[in-house]
């Protein structure tokens, strides 16, 4: 029995191709049930994300897995994509190395992203539920999870956010800890501000107040975020209750000016205030940073940190690869031991389906 993987990813295919091969959760369930019953296969798993579509199998050497995938799409009543013929093919140790890299985030579009590990776990669980995870696949995926976990703990490959919004959230957490008690004032109802506010809400932000030159747009965004909208003339008083201010406007002059906020700042006491300026030209008077309780970051600061994180992640890839190599060697040793045990016909020998 041989480990096989056929797949495409963002490295070698445009999204228009990937979407033709992507399967929905319901289709994956049916596909695994169908593959489980094919002669020559003892196990199968499908990893389908927005960046990759990969079909893993434990198959007899003579099995035409590529041809089988054509039949799979027919069974799903989907047009069989002609790209099946061009899927990258990996065999044996290549499959092991590839899956380990994928699970550890080294093969992702953004090196070190951690969401993929959850998706790989889901792929394994779906295979297990469908009764398509044989002993070899079980061991392969468990080893991949262990390897990815070690990479995460022992290297800096997943360190820090690599987008402006993610860095802003991390900084807010460095100041306030949990965001569950924090309120944000969002000045400007554009895309950038919305992304940052959403990233904060994903980490438990308590509430948001949105203001914008066009009040209707502020209301629309507030509705989408589950916050409230206030007219541009009234936002200053919201500072009394706010912990974070995100300014993302295209105004020619700073909208947050020290001389206009003196009274509000005095009244709100010395509670920390995190000011995030995503505007160009800058929307927050740099003089605000003079206040003891104020932490001010502009878009260049945030992008600089994101770039640093990316560089750190890239520099950690070599040590991550070493860890993966060790786990891959352990997996190979296990397979070899299994093969000897089967050939020896000893007690506990696994059947041909294993």
């Amino acid at each position: 029995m041989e480990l096989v993987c056929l797949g495409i990813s963002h490295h070698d295919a445009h999204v228009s191709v990937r979407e033709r091969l992507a399967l929905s959760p319901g289709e994956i369930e049916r596909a695994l049930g169908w593959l489980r019953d094919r002669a020559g296969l003892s196990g199968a798993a499908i990893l389908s994300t927005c960046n990759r579509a990969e079909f893993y199998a434990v198959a007899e050497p003579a099995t035409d897995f590529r041809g089988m995938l054509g039949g799979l799409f027919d069974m799903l009543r989907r047009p069989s994509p002609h790209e099946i013929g061009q899927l990258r093919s990996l065999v044996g140790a290549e499959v092991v190395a590839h899956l380990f890299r994928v699970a550890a985030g080294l093969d992702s579009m953004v090196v070190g992203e951690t969401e993929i590990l959850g998706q790989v776990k889901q792929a394994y669980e779906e295979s297990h539920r469908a009764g398509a995870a044989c002993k070899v696949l079980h061991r392969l995926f468990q080893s991949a999870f262990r390897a990815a976990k070690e990479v995460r703990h022992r290297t800096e490959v997943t360190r820090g956010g690599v987008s402006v919004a993610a860095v802003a959230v991390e900084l807010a957490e460095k100041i306030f800890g949990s965001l569950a008690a924090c309120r944000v004032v969002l000045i400007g109802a554009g895309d950038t501000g919305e992304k940052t506010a959403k990233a904060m809400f994903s980490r438990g932000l308590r509430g948001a107040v949105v203001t914008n030159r066009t009040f209707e747009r502020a209301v629309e965004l507030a509705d989408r975020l589950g916050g409230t909208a206030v007219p541009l003339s009234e936002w200053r008083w919201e500072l009394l209750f706010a912990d974070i201010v995100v300014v993302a406007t295209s105004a020619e002059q700073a909208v947050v000016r020290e001389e206009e906020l003196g009274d509000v700042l005095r009244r709100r006491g010395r509670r920390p205030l995190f000011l995030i300026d995503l505007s160009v030209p800058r929307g927050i008077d740099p003089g605000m940073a003079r206040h003891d309780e104020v932490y001010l970051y502009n878009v260049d600061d945030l992008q600089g940190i994101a770039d640093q994180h990316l560089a750190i992640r890239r520099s950690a890839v070599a040590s991550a690869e070493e860890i993966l190599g060790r786990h891959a060697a352990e997996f190979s040793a296990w397979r070899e031991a299994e093969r000897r045990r089967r050939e020896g016909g000893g007690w506990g020998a696994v059947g041909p389906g294993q």
Partner: protein
Amino acid sequence: MSGGLVFSAAVAAYAVASAMGLYRMRSRLFRPGVVQFAAFVGALALHTWYLMMRGAEVRRCPVTTPADIMVFVAWSLAVAYVVVGPVYRFTIPGVLTAPLVALLLLASLAFPSVAGPAKGEVSAAVEFHASSSLLAYGALGLACVTGLFYLIHDHCIRAKRFQAWFDNLPSLHELGRVNRDLMLYGLGLMSVGIISGFFTPGGVNAAKTISFVMMWALYAALLLASATDRISGRRTALLSSLLFAAMILSFWTFSLARGGMGQGP
């Protein structure tokens, strides 16, 4: 079992906890592992046992020689580590507590541990006064350390420079909270120390008492100002560190003026 053996066992257990903590820190894990925490608690139990043996030996609270005071201060740091809670334990200062305690115990060996004749009358009141005051020093010392970490973290955020080591510090909010909790804990112990000082035989040393009460008032004012958001977290952290430095300075001044460590602070 001899006191020396218990002392050595305590140092060894702290050393094990230190080694495990530093090893885990390499992997950016600050939360103590079960074995590591058990080693620390075991070390603290041995440490406490040693202090009890030492107390029985010198027939008073063992805070009368420089060596004993170091052992006692180390003990108060270890107690605070266990008592203060996870926010402190799961951080760099938390990880560094075991090595610091082990070093203090080892450093105490450099001083003669034989207690000389007591300079004042030995009584339960004196011992209670001295031990509660030393525990207050321990708590306020940890508040100072936490305050320093707050200042480092605050500086990194303002300067927009992040070192990998300090990346795992708790948030400023949490460091500030631990800093205040420790000051509150220390203030309570200081109150006990001051009040019990009035019941010691031979009366109080007026200058020392005034200095201690002034420190108490400054800490209380600092806590009040911080709780009502009248001063920023940064200033609270800075002042807590400066106040502790002033307290240590006044302690040494009084000790020198008395020509030794006498009856403790």
